[in-house]
């Protein structure tokens, strides 16, 4: 892997990362958004998180796993229950990794 290749990717990713993050904040924070748009935006966090979880657990690393014996799916269910019960972000994340290790060992 040549140094030029790696640095090209890093710099391009850095520039694009900033370009997708900054303009929406800079522009939209200066205007009063209409009620319907604010409502639409209020649904975005939960929609994105549901999408990320679904994508990451059903097709981890780009490979589909059979749903019933997929340790990611069941570990995510356990993680969600722990967060819902204890409201601890760190506790739920650690419990999730522990669930995952146990399930991966059990399910092969």
């Amino acid at each position: 892997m040549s140094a030029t290749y790696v640095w090209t990717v890093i710099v391009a990713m850095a520039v694009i990362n900033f370009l997708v993050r900054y303009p929406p904040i800079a522009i939209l924070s200066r205007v009063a958004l209409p009620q319907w748009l604010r409502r639409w935006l209020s649904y975005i966090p939960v929609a994105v998180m549901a999408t990320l979880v679904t994508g990451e657990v059903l097709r981890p690393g780009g490979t589909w796993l059979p749903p019933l014996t997929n340790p990611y799916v069941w570990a995510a269910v356990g993680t969600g229950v722990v967060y819902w019960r204890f409201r601890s972000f760190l506790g739920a994340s650690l419990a999730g990794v522990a669930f995952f290790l146990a399930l991966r060992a059990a399910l092969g």
Partner: protein
Amino acid sequence: MGLGFPILLGYLPIGMAFGVLAESLGFTPLQATACSALALAGAGQFIALALMGSGATAIAVVAATTVVNLRYVLFGAALSPHLDRVRPVGQALLAFSLTDETFAVNIDDHRRGSADAWSMAGVGAIAWAGWVGGTAVGALASGLIGDPARWGVQFAMPAMFTALLVAQAESRRHVLVGVIAAALTLGFMLLLPGRWYVVAAPILAATLAAVLPR
């Protein structure tokens, strides 16, 4: 949520995993750390590594990570009503440090009325430090750490996303949005190439929820 310290503890191992993987693919420790420091992109960085390892061109790598990172347009828009009193430099720094986790924590803090520009800057700085520090340690000590998959690190990101998802489910309407988004995600994963579902599913789910009668 304690200024993002839980994020720091979550990012350290994932950053280390990124450092180890990058080093194993031929990144120098400096390149791995610079990647995390400048192009803070979580999942996008792992996707970039996978593609680079399979010999993709630089353009293909950047295009794929851009698709995954388009969700930050939505995040920025959702945060923007809270940032009308922050100066442009502050907005730029907040934008630079915006990740899924810092976004969710800041939105949650705003809902409780406990967020301001300083608390958001703190969340961003702490998360960035965890991610970059973890990457440096991973890249420098990859020989000692071994295969990060042994420690279950690949579930650390999904675990954080899951906790953040439950944290966002504040009303029945939000639970409904999450269920719709999950169903659309499955459909779009089967229909769309690459990771376009990351953009398509949330936009359609939020739109459906906004137009459905209450």
